[in-house]
């Protein structure tokens, strides 16, 4: 009986943790960007502005939840749900510490890839249902971008799978007790990082919602909590990419002295901060540059990494 209680605690705890920290990230990001750009950022609500999240939440919930009369109502409502559901579901396979993690799937890595590939639907259906030119352009960009970078996302991981010999994320972490995979798979780590940012379509890869040319891209017509779900979904996706990198390349919960969970959270937050810093530092490329970079730089590098790792494993 106690194991069932522990399981429920595990599931509910991780769910609440993920959604709450994603919501907090909206504040962390604005605050950190402010500090890096030599301004204050949101610092009015509560100490250091920490209650900004609550203020934002109240604002979003009080806003009129409007569905445009020309929109495809059914799809319009389904799209943000997919955005949120898919990333939270993908978090189920992340092993945070020994005994902490929702499910220990023997195809955990593939499950993660499957959920990421489904996340393209939220953007595309949102764009289609809005029946808006900006949204449509944003949706087309998102579809091509996510489909392309998914390829490199998957390919860059296969080196790790070869070294660990399993798709099970918990076993992948345990295989790093001697040496973190970031050392033999440094190139793969960089590729995964870039592809991960592109998959969660954040700056510099946020062309699907580039505000200077497409208003707000695929979520132009969304308001209220439906927009909030796209927004929080993006931050969960940031968290997911960072956690995945920790699990695959930075030894998961492994580390001296401190308890395992603390190590995991520490490593994850460093990577999340790095992603925020990149947003503050890099400009957006042109769309054709983005696609050319993907297919002409990322793909060959991922292939080379795959071949070299294969040779090294065999020898």
């Amino acid at each position, binding site marked *: 009986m106690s194991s069932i209680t522990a399981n429920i605690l595990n599931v509910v705890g991780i769910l609440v943790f993920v959604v709450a920290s994603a919501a907090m990230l909206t504040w962390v990001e604005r605050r950190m960007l402010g500090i890096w750009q030599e301004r204050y950022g949101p610092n009015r609500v509560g100490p250091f502005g920490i209650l900004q999240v609550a203020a934002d939440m109240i604002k979003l919930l009080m806003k009129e939840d409007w569905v445009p009369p020309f929109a*495809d109502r059914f799809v319009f409502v389904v799209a943000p749900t997919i955005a949120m559901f898919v990333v939270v579901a993908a978090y189920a396979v992340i092993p945070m510490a020994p005994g902490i993690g929702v499910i220990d799937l023997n*195809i955990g890595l593939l499950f993660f890839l*499957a959920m990421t*590939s489904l996340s393209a639907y939220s953007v*595309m259906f949102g764009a289609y249902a809005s*029946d808006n030119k900006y949204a449509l352009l944003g*949706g087309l960009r998102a579809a091509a971008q996510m489909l392309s970078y998914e390829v490199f996302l998957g390919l860059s991981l296969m080196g790790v799978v070869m070294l660990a010999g399993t798709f099970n994320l918990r076993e992948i972490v345990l295989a790093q007790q001697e040496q973190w995979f970031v050392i033999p798979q440094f190139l793969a780590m960089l590729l995964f990082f870039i592809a991960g940012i592109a998959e969660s379509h954040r700056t510099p890869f946020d062309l699907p919602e580039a505000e200077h040319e497409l208003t707000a891209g695929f979520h132009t017509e969304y308001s209220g909590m439906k927009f909030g779900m796209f927004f929080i979904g993006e931050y969960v996706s940031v968290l997911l990419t960072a956690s995945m990198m920790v699990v695959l390349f930075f030894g998961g919960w492994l580390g001296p002295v401190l308890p395992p969970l603390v190590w995991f959270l520490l490593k994850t937050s460093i990577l999340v901060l790095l992603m925020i810093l990149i947003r503050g530092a890099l400009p957006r490329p042109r769309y054709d540059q983005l696609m050319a970079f993907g297919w002409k730089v990322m793909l060959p590098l991922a292939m080379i990494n795959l071949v070299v790792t294969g040779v090294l494993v065999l020898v």
Partner: protein
Amino acid sequence: MQDTFFLVIFYVTAAVAVLSTLLMISRLNAVHGLLYLIVSSLSLAIIFYLLGAPFAAALEVIIYAGAIMILFVFVVMMLNMGHKGVEQERQWLKPGGWIGPGLLALVLFAVFVPALSGGLVSTGPRLVSAKAVGIALFGPYLLVVELASFLLLAGLIGAYHIARPPEITGDDSDSLTSARHHDDIAIEPLQGAG
């Protein structure tokens, strides 16, 4: 207890698969149809998983639901059918059109039911891991894998050929703008445009 649990999941998923496929065929709006098709392939993935093939289940989601269906949605979005498309479908999808396919499907069903009850399905649930799939693919079925890769290569070269930028005639072939001024590029008209 465990077995009945799995049986219930199996039948519920199977019902969802059949229902969503039927709805997919009968929707007037193309995107709604695609949504049901995605649901259908997701439920197929769950069935694969229950039958002890987790790798096939993951591939079903990654490739069918996650890549091929996205291309379908992409094309439907490009065509931008909207309300006109629904009207058109309503005219085309007359009840009379269902008779032929319905009869043929009935024949298939009539053949299928005795085949199922006759116990022709002999391979019981047995866990097929990713490793087992890999060993099978690159062992006895290596030739098939190579043939499939030929097919993909042909598709790749074809796509490259179609999407190739038009050749620029003239001295300074590196400068597209000057070539435009001379107005001597032979740009082929788009197939089916207008």
